[in-house]
């Protein structure tokens, strides 16, 4: 009795059937790259806030602030942190374009940022077309307070913040 046996050609056909591509080297590559990329990923809440500088003559710091006799028309916010013979008080002061000043003393030993926000929003309401403000900061003010002030300025719509230090003027 003859034994059924697949023909030679059928045997060949099954051997040369469709083959899946060999993905193992690609997998190896991916498995190498992905941990490397994950190591480089930095997950943090770090943020950045930028400064703006005047293009004409401003050097970003020490360029002034309009002290007595200053002729620039700009909205200012001044941060004081010294209570000495010069008469500086502890707190902050806002000045609008007409040099109209409003002073806000410390509350509980620190800047009153709630009032600062309200004052900045008031200034923005009065001058809706202005987007620049000068932050004039005295040397002893803490960096934290400077950044919070810049932050509130930007939140209130004054997106161009100039960083200035007070100008000391001597009269003879």
């Amino acid at each position, binding site marked *: 009795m003859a034994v059924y046996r697949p023909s030679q050609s059928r045997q060949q056909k099954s051997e040369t059937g469709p083959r899946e591509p060999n993905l193992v080297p690609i997998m190896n590559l991916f498995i190498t790259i992905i941990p490397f990329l994950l190591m480089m990923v930095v997950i943090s809440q770090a943020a950045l*806030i930028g400064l703006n500088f005047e293009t004409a003559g401003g050097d970003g710091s020490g360029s002034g602030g309009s002290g007595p006799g200053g002729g620039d028309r700009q909205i200012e916010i001044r941060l004081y942190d010294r209570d000495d013979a010069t008469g500086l008080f502890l707190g902050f002061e806002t000045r609008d374009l007409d040099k109209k000043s409003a002073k806000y003393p410390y509350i509980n030993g620190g800047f009153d940022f709630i009032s600062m926000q309200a004052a900045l929003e008031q200034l923005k309401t009065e001058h809706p077309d202005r987007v620049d403000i000068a932050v004039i900061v005295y040397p002893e*003010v803490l960096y934290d307070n400077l950044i919070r002030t810049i932050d509130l300025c930007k939140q209130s719509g004054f997106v161009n913040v100039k960083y200035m230090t007070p100008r000391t003027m001597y009269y003879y």
Partner: protein
Amino acid sequence: MSRKNTRSSGGRKVRNKTEVSAELSITSLLDVLTIILVFLIKNVSMEAVKISEVSGIQYPTTISKEEIIKNPEVVPVKIYLDRVEIGVDGLFFGTPNDLGDTKKYDDLILFLENEYAKIPPDKKDQACLVVQADASLQCKYITQVVSVGTRADFANIYFATIQDEDWLSSYRPNLARN
């Protein structure tokens, strides 16, 4: 893995060769990995390493967050309470008080001018000085660094902060001060 089944059918033996494949299909896994890879490559930025959070500095908090300019040429300056580190490599510069020293001040200008000079001419506009300073520092140190940065022609100066959208409602003055 293969299994050979043999069954009898009407006195005739039929050898049924059944291939049972138990290989793990890695195609779907490969798809997932491809998506992850594309996502990571898109998001990974070498600049992020230069301005990542560093330990030893308590950052100030802000509500707002600004995007850094595209393709920046970052030069970081890290001001700790007790030391100042400059450049991507974190070179030790001195203490914050040294920023007031004329010689050290000039050295810092020279360093930043050299860093600025290394930037290709077509990327000078993207020169970016990132100040990473401790929240408890006095502004006089920040002023010195900003002053040096502007003198070295850095057009973009950023302050590194931690984003906290609720800082105003939770602010307690006595805790923020020294």
